[in-house]
């Protein structure tokens, strides 16, 4: 009974655990101890076969389907996860984990380095997407979950899902990869570099040692503004804002936010700095830029999935120019060459990369059918 109660405490909302680790990082370093903040919804079934891991995007977090403690907003993927949704706590044991390097409770640059008693800041090791996945695997070991029914993620979450399938093929029955890529393109890296340089150019950044002082929020806000443009489509921006002016009848002939789109971006930037750490932004964008699943396989992506038994479902959106359909097709091609069971569809949406977070009935229908087929 005591054991059972102890087991129960591993599951639930807003959990945090310190694991001994270490995580062996791609850089060659070892990282320990490893703090992991996570949430679970729904119960693990008797044969532990209904666990689904949700992987979040760059600025996402573990609050997939519960209220965000800082913003008070609903979870970021309540359209996909929740009662009656494709990923349903009534049927699945849903796990979401704040990635390593982030700032919502898992080890990241803002965490306290136990050896110094101060924040790691730039002393935090440079990590990769596979490193994040290795840390997640440690947590699953702790939860006693050997095999995942599915790993599901959009954008950077999709990179993690692909990495899970490549690193731990025997632990992943199905992978759902939405609006994602198997490598960061030059354009992807370029946009991230703009964001990083904006942060580093903020005098308050102080080489990352700003904890306890004012944060480089101007730089971080600019980084967010630049990135946010890449999440939307030109058509979407035009539809939403056009050239409409913000609360005024005429141009001001000044540099206020005359246009609605300027006002919107400024708001996106300002509201972001309240909930996100600038150094985390540096580390996670770096991890994404380093991501190239084919690199350890002489550039041949199919080899990353050789002999895989994992089922794959990929979805892209036609207006997503951040991770365009061609990137998903490249993955599909590789999975085909590896003989994997793979499904792929490009859905139509005016909303660009962000489409995966929005209402998309066709996406839900596909994910639901794909998961249910794996449950038979």
């Amino acid at each position, binding site marked *: 009974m005591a054991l059972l109660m102890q087991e129960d405490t591993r599951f639930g909302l807003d959990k945090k655990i310190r694991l001994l680790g270490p995580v062996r990082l791609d850089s060659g370093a070892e990282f320990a101890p490893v703090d992991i903040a996570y949430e679970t919804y729904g119960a693990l079934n008797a044969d532990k076969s209904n666990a689904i891991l949700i992987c979040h995007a760059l600025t996402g977090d573990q609050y997939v389907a519960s209220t965000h403690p800082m913003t008070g907003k609903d979870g970021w993927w309540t359209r996909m996860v929740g009662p009656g949704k494709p990923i349903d706590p009534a049927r699945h044991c849903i796990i979401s984990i704040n990635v390593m390097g982030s700032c919502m409770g898992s080890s990241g640059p803002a965490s306290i380095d136990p050896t110094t008693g101060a924040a790691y800041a730039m002393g935090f090791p440079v990590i990769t997407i596979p490193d994040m996945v290795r840390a997640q695997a440690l947590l699953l070991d702790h939860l006693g979950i050997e095999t995942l029914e599915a790993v599901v993620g959009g954008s950077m979450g999709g990179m993690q899902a692909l990495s899970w399938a490549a690193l731990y093929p025997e632990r992943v029955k199905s992978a759902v990869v939405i609006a994602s890529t198997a490598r960061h393109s030059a354009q992807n890296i370029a946009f991230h570099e703009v964001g990083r340089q904006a942060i580093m150019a903020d005098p308050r950044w102080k080489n990352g040692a700003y904890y306890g002082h004012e944060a480089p929020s101007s730089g971080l806000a600019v980084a967010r503004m630049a990135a946010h443009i890449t999440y939307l489509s030109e058509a979407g921006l035009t539809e939403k804002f056009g050239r409409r002016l913000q609360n005024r009848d005429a141009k001001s002939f000044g540099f206020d936010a005359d246009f609605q789109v300027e006002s919107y971006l400024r708001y996106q930037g300002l509201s972001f700095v309240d909930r996100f750490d600038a150094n985390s932004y540096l580390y996670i964008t770096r991890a994404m830029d380093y991501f190239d699943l084919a690199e350890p396989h002489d550039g041949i992506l199919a080899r990353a999935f050789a002999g895989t038994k994992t089922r794959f479902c990929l979805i892209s959106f036609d207006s997503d120019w951040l991770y365009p359909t061609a990137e998903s097709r490249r993955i599909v091609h590789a999975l085909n060459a590896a003989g994997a069971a793979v*499904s792929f569809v490009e859905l139509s949406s005016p909303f660009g990369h962000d489409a995966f977070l929005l209402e998309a009935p066709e996406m839900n229908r596909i994910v639901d059918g794909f998961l249910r*087929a794996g449950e038979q």
Partner: protein
Amino acid sequence: MSALRPDLAIIAREVRAGARVLDVGCGDGQLMAALRDAKNVDARGLELNAHDVATSVSRGLSVIQGDADTDLAEYPDGSFDYAILSQTLQTTKRPDLVLDHLVRIGREAFVSFPNFAQWRIRFAHMFGGRMPVTKQLPHLWYDTPNIHHVTIDDFRSLLHERNIEIEGQWFLSGNKPRADRFANLLAQHAVFKLRRK
């Protein structure tokens, strides 16, 4: 299993249990689902229409959105026991190249198509002087997906030219099978089982 379209029923009957199948232009996955459920076939699909792909995937099938004209080149030689192309040949830009891919990817291939030389169509053309619109080919000339109408004899001559062997052939009038004799004149649909020589 819901009633399959007659040409699909023939293919479903002929496919070996447990085989690996690529269904090119699989639509909403009806044939693949039937093959999986009745014959434990490992079926993969390729389909251009996103909504049909979504329906197939929601049936638990592995289907990739793609175009027979451009995407078949990605599949390795002999990677499937059967490659199937049902009611799709006449919609492709280059039916000859698609056919080459089919018999390359599949150790055997099934191809079914509406026969444009069936007598009703000939009549409509000859006496109506217009592009035929029939129950089997209900589209008007300007919005038909069937951009390469083909007859049974045309198809046979293409097979000969491409060095492709006929392993089986079935003909249909409406839903009923019909004899090989005068098929080019009398059959509405044809199903061929093929293999590269």
